[in-house]
């Protein structure tokens, strides 16, 4: 599996292809929706980890991975791929340890989308280490 640290935040080739494949309205809509998906899934994951709800946490990581990779957000997608493997192996301590990386990479994707940071940026304590 490729190292997420080496991946670009956004793969420009995917963005260029999407511009060709989608009409302008859908192109704008799909990127706005990705920002909502990132915020929503990160909040869901934080709450699930705090509650030891592994099923919801696993699904949130999986959803974030698919959404990010579909739109060429390679760094976030690859980090989620790694976390997905951890989730499948029930290695929740590794996922909790990677929380700050995930938050930083999610914020980088949001910035690339022209959006601000995560709504719960100041409250990472909800994820128990």
């Amino acid at each position, binding site marked *: 599996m490729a190292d997420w640290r080496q991946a670009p935040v956004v793969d420009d080739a*995917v963005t260029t*292809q*999407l511009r060709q*494949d*989608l*009409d302008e309205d*859908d192109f704008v*809509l*799909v*990127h706005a*929706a*990705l920002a*909502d*998906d990132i915020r929503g*899934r990160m909040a869901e994951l934080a709450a699930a980890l705090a509650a030891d709800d592994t099923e*919801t946490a696993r*699904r949130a990581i*999986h*959803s*974030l*991975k*698919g*959404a990010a*990779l*579909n*739109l*060429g957000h390679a760094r976030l*997608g690859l980090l989620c791929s790694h976390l*997905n493997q951890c989730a499948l192996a029930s290695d929740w301590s590794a996922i909790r340890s990677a929380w700050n990386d995930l938050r930083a990479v999610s914020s980088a994707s949001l910035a690339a989308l022209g959006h601000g940071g995560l709504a719960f940026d100041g409250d990472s304590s909800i994820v128990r280490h």
Partner: protein
Amino acid sequence: MPAFIVPKEAIMSEKLEQAIAAAIADKLVLVVEDTSSSRILVSGLVRGLGAHRVVSATDGVDALAKTVDKGLVPDVVLCDWVMPNMDGLELLTRIKAAHSAVKFIMMTVKTEAEAVIMARQHGVDGYVAKPFSRDSLMASLAKVLGVSG
């Protein structure tokens, strides 16, 4: 990757694209994805390929509520596997049990052989690996619609 899965790098011809547009124009296409970006992306691509009747849903429960429960039987279903409430495999099973002619394409990051075999045992007609491309989506639609270019 199992051979049943359409690769992202599938190569399409203009003639095939026209054939798909003609075949899909009057079909009811159901897109089921729990993330809104993926739902908008797949719906937008399918409309761009010529589908005029596209319904989208957030999970299996929503999909049934918007179609089968209202007497609307989709011709083609494009569905994620991992979703809350009712996942893609259960939706596949329920739709195929009642309407075996519905063409069901699973779109998922689950590309291991065991997952593909399980989906095929439940009657899946096509399988697209995520991240997908417009061409891999077209290739799978061409296959399930029985068109060639």
